[in-house]
């Protein structure tokens, strides 16, 4: 049997809008008595199924709020589906928000180890790749500066450099290439292309059609949490444009 790298099977992600506002015990019991605890449900992702094979690169497209990022987080293991299953085989490098694991009080040097550990790398491994990370991020002069003084571009550069040091089986990328200057975007692009050539599976969220078509062969189109189409990237985009226009 063919093993899929990512298998999404009738997955739902339901948020309870009323429940989210229940912060105190008093409110909780008041709502419990009124029977309002499960009142306004909201499906960010509804009955989505698709599979991704090893080495494929797939784009998630759709308008803002259509559930692309939610789906990506479900695959990353951050969110659990409320119904259905999401199965992932292989290691994941999440580029969902670069530098999510940074502590801004610490220096870049300290953060490289911390963020590496968030991704499951130990100290020896990080020592071995320290120089490589610093060079890629071009932050040699600012290594011992607390990161709260960094610009957002610098933070993103360091985050990208750390997340891509190992060749992970699956790369989850959410709109991150929009940050950084032109030259750095080029560098990121190059590194991603190289990872893809080595057989990494890519899941890509972007609003940049040219970039998507360049990197991905397949696409999944989401609208209001439902999957509208899946298949060849050009065909899906055609259907998408027809629907939007």
């Amino acid at each position, binding site marked *: 049997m063919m093993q899929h790298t990512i298998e999404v099977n009738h997955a739902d992600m339901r948020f309870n809008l009323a429940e989210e506002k229940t912060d105190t015990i008093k409110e909780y019991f008041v709502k419990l008595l009124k029977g309002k605890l499960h009142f306004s449900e909201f499906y960010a992702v509804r009955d989505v199924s698709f599979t991704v094979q090893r080495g494929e690169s797939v784009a998630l497209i759709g308008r803002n709020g259509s559930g692309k990022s939610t789906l990506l987080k479900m695959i990353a293991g951050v969110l659990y589906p409320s119904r259905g299953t999401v199965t992932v085989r292989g290691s994941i490098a999440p580029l969902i928000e670069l530098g*999510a694991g940074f502590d801004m009080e610490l220096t870049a040097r300290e953060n490289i180890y911390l963020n590496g550990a968030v*991704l499951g*790398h130990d100290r020896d491994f990080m020592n071995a790749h320290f120089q490589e990370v610093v060079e890629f991020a071009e932050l040699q002069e600012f290594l011992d500066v607390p990161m709260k003084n960094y610009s957002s571009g610098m933070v993103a550069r360091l985050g990208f450099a750390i997340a891509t040091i190992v060749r992970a089986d699956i790369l989850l990328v959410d709109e991150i290439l929009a940050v950084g200057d032109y030259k750095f975007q080029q560098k990121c692009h190059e590194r991603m292309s190289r990872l893809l050539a080595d057989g990494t599976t890519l899941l890509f969220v972007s609003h940049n059609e040219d970039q998507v078509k360049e990197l991905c062969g397949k696409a999944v189109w989401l609208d209001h949490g439902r999957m509208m189409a899946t298949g060849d990237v050009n065909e899906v985009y055609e259907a998408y444009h027809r629907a939007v226009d």
Partner: protein
Amino acid sequence: MNGLGTVKNLKTYMPLLRELIVRDLKVKYRRSVLGYLWSLLNPLLMMAILTMVFSQVFRFDIPNYPLYLICGQTLWSFFNESTNQAMYSVLYNGSLLKKVYIPKYIFPVSRVLSSFVTMSFSLLAIVIVLILTRTPVYWTAILFPIPLVFLLLFSIGVGMVLSALSVYFRDVVHLYSVITLAWMYLTPIFYSLEIVPANVRVLIQCNPIYHYITFFRQLILYGQLPAAGTWLFCLLSSMVMLAAGIAVFRKLQRNFILYL
């Protein structure tokens, strides 16, 4: 998650646990001139003040009062600090948990462990008091890590319960500060059990922290080995609390992300 998965998980995330502890220690004393010395100075200064208040003003008659006090106080402040920090740990790291998969228990556990490391520095303060008061050192003193480990496991359990509950109800944070106040007074830190009326004494004897502190004092202060009953109570209470913490945390962690 099955047992094997948890063990594998533990191995993968050991480096993270280590980095988080190091981070806590670094951030705690960053930008203070004396740095780690505060972990030593703080208990000494607190002890000096409390000794003055309680031996001059209230006149408790406890032999070697400074040592009696600092033993209780060091253990209590570890429990107080670690559980309070653990309570906020999941809330504070919400932004991280929303973006990367990390086993969530790592936050309360790392907080309690970093407080434990800080407390180890504070043990030096006890040694200093031992020397200054010219207290004889008994061989039983080498067993001092035993009550500390009981207390550590108990604190991890309490910290896990608090960190999980506080995600769902922020009230827990306010409630717990009142609870710790009552709890502190129900722990013989600066008084001895003998001065309390019998009905309150029963209540205090249900307090596991009282037993950990007594265990510690018996080893250091009196050179005695605690009775078998104390060993059993300490072991059971810490294990039960830890198990309860893990159970509550496991049950609640699934939906953390929706409340952060």
